[in-house]
């Protein structure tokens, strides 16, 4: 449905529900305290034609939010999800919300929306009761009609009931339907974006065709740390139709055609000055350790480490690394901005419309009410579009050419250069196992590069210390949130270390975890994974190439089992099979959840095996997909996904959890195949060959 139709539909004789939640009812503290209470946070409009419009500040990134949120509204109002029109991520029309990230949509926004729909149902039934002269208990509701059960001819519709009404409701009085009455939750529902995305009709930010649009290509320094000091634009300006815009160190070449703007930019000669960082992708790990050392802080400390080490019969010291990794969304960062009548409108590829609004307002010294962000279909986010430097660039340029829509679409080289990477990191762990091989006697972990976020799982490790640095600007390159930030780095280290302890003590990896796990839910999940995989664990390395790892993202738990084949002459790792058992509470949309797990496994096969940003000083050496290697079809294994039967627990998000244990399961599988422990993500063929050289000859 087009935005204009939607708005016309809802303003003419519509019943509008504004919902607010009481203070403190949100499951976690919002980033702006009180924001949910001050702002309207869920919004349903029932039009005279009976259609239901749902306005939310979340965005459709491909993760299926559009479908699952419509499902929840439809469930309460007894509609087909196709009858619910979703309008997402428009800061003028949608209530404030946190970014679409952190696996928060299902955990955070969904309960509010479901409650709002439940309340709307109650209101509609009460109105129908009055109109039909029958008690609510005698009424039936389906597909936008309400009738008297005993006399179906006595009926009315949402459309007839709502004419010209508007009301504000406070949530919390009405409870959603009990699960036993639900007919949509737990069922496969067609994705609402399927038609648009398979016919080319889906509009992404770069697909807007606003009349008079100028495409802006921006002069970039050859390296981070360098800034523009002078530019010769004479040759570019001789090209017909070219305009140059400067705003501080930002220099943009504008042209009605995107490719001509790019060609004209190539004629601009820039002079840059500054200091590049003195480090490269080889020296980065020592750089991080050295820079972090003086700022290391004890985050958690329990028990006496020295005493624990004395009790240990098996001690392992491990150092685990991961490289910088790009989000590499297939759609590069793209925005269109227009400055008109004192207001800036930005159509953006964004995960966080409200964060973008703040950022654009701050950059342009405007009030937030003077900035309007409209999210489009987003061609992948993964944390990379939580922040919007490209949107700010578009707005800065647009501010200087009033009334003209300005499109800034980064090309692949810019996207790889300007991305905020998954941070490179070093995790050092020293830990020990007792003689009975049932207790971790001490666990001493120090990280550089990330935090200790999600470093712990419910394992029995009573004597421990976790250190992380409090050092500002630790990284020489820009870093950001990358799907399950911190958690996947820490899980790689923890689960590799446990595997190494198990192997050294002659214990199989499942038995060790069974002895350590203190949480019944995780234990059940471990059993589910092992049974589904049909695996008889034995002390590694067994040569079979099977590895296991556990992981968590908040209350979402995952157990992963990977099977690999390693070519010992080339060092190439082939993933043959990958299983994840997942417990995220009640699964609302099973097929959508499964897609997220399949996607996470696939994406992280790239993370584990091939994706690495190479750099020298401030120069990013990877400029396109010829050297920055995403997993292609031939790299994809047989994938199995199984969900824990846990319908009684609160639904957790599913974007992050399945990412967490993937690299660790693959590394443990490589060990099981070869006896070589790979400790550096990605474990490229070269790194696998190095690890093979370290295996003692038998």
């Amino acid at each position, binding site marked *: 449905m087009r935005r204009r139709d939607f708005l016309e539909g809802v303003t003419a004789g519509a019943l509008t529900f504004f919902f607010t939640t009481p203070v403190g009812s949100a499951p976690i503290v919002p980033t702006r305290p009180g924001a949910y209470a001050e702002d309207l946070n869920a919004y349903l409009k029932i039009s005279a034609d009976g259609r239901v419009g749902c306005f939310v500040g979340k965005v459709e990134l491909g993760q299926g939010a559009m479908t699952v949120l419509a499902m929840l509204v439809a469930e309460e109002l007894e509609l087909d999800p196709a009858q619910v029109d979703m309008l997402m991520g428009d800061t003028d029309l949608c209530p404030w919300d946190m970014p679409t990230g952190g696996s928060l949509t299902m955990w955070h926004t969904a309960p509010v929306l479901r409650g709002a729909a439940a309340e709307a149902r109650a209101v509609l039934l009460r109105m129908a009761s009055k109109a039909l002269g029958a008690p609510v208990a005698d009424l039936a509701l389906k597909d936008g009609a309400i009738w008297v059960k005993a006399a179906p001819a006595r009926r009315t519709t949402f459309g007839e009931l709502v004419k010209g009404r508007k009301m504000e409701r406070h949530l919390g009085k009405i409870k959603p339907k009990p699960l036993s009455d639900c007919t949509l939750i737990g069922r496969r529902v067609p994705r609402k974006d399927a038609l648009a995305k398979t016919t080319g009709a889906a509009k*992404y930010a770069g697909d807007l065709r606003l009349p008079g649009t100028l495409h802006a290509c921006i002069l970039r320094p050859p390296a981070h740390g360098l800034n523009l000091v002078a530019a010769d634009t004479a040759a570019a300006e001789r090209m017909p139709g070219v305009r140059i815009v400067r705003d501080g160190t930002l220099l943009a070449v504008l042209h009605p055609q995107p490719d001509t703007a790019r060609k004209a930019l190539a004629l601009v000669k820039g002079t840059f000055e500054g200091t590049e960082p003195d480090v490269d992708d080889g020296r980065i790990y020592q750089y991080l350790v050295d820079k972090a050392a003086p700022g290391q802080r004890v985050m958690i400390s329990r028990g006496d480490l020295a005493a624990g080490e004395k009790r240990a019969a098996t001690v392992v010291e491990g150092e685990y690394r991961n490289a910088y990794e790009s989000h590499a969304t297939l759609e590069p960062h793209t925005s269109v901005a227009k400055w008109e009548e004192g207001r800036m409108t930005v159509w953006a590829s964004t995960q966080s419309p409200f964060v973008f609004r703040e950022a654009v307002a701050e950059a342009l010294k405007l009030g937030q009410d003077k900035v309007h962000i409209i999210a489009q279909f987003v061609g992948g986010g993964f944390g990379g579009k939580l922040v919007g430097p490209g949107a700010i660039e578009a707005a800065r340029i647009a501010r200087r050419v009033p009334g003209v829509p300005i499109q800034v679409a980064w090309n692949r080289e810019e996207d790889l250069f300007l991305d905020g990477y998954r941070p490179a990191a070093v995790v050092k762990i020293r830990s020990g196992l007792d003689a009975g091989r049932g207790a971790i006697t001490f666990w001493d972990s120090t990280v550089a590069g990330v935090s200790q976020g999600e470093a712990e799982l419910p394992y029995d490790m009573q004597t421990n210390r976790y250190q992380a640095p409090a050092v500002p600007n630790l990284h020489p390159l820009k870093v950001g949130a990358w799907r399950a930030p911190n958690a996947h780095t820490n899980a790689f280290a923890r689960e590799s270390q446990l595997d190494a302890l198990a192997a050294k003590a002659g214990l199989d990896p499942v038995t060790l975890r069974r002895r350590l796990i203190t949480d019944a839910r995780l234990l059940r999940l471990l059993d589910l994974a092992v049974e589904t995989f049909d695996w008889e664990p034995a002390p590694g390395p067994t040569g079979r190439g099977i590895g296991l790892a556990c992981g968590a993202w908040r209350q979402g738990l995952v157990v992963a089992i990977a099977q690999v084949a390693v070519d010992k002459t080339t060092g190439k790792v082939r993933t043959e099979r990958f299983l994840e058992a997942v417990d995220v509470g009640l699964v609302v949309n099973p097929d959508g959840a499964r897609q997220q797990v399949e996607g996470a496994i696939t994406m992280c096969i790239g993370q584990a095996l091939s994706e690495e940003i190479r750099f020298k000083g401030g120069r990013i050496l990877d400029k396109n997909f010829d050297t920055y290697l995403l997993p292609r079809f031939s790299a*994809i294994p047989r994938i199995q996904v199984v969900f824990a039967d846990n319908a009684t627990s609160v639904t957790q998000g599913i974007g992050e959890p399945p990412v967490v244990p993937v690299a660790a399961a693959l590394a443990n599988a490589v060990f099981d195949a070869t006896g070589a422990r790979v400790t550096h993500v990605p474990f490229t063929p070269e790194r696998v060959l190095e690890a093979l050289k370290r295996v003692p000859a038998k």
Partner: protein
Amino acid sequence: MDATVSFVLNGKPVTVKSPHDRMLVWVLRDELGLTGTKVGCEAGLCGACTVLVDFEAVPSCSTTLGDVAGKAVLTIEGLALDGKLDPVQKAFQDHHAFQCGYCTSGMIMAAWAFLKKKPKATRTEIVEAMEGNLCRCGAHVRILDAVESAGKAMGGVR
């Protein structure tokens, strides 16, 4: 310098005035307003811009306007006939063989060109045929399933 180039686009003749060496993807998106074809790498490495030229899948970011003079170009917008989805589109829908959708047009076009030649392909042959198309969300398994079932639906005849 602008050239006048005629070709058949989605079954209808078109004439475009644009430089001979201008890349087809820009002509399609910018001149002709067909934005279903996406730009991902501009180097023929990701497949997001895949279109068919005389039924061969090509990256339109690396194909010039001059290359298609007098030829038949098919884009994602031209696949459905009279509002009826093509079997490949239908299979991508049924299998939910996409997430963000940015690679999907290119995937569907690459699959279409391949299946036209070989509807009864093995899984391995499908993997090889799709190897040039990148998907970042990880819809690969579903894409392979969709291509396989579309092949069956097409039954070798189209």
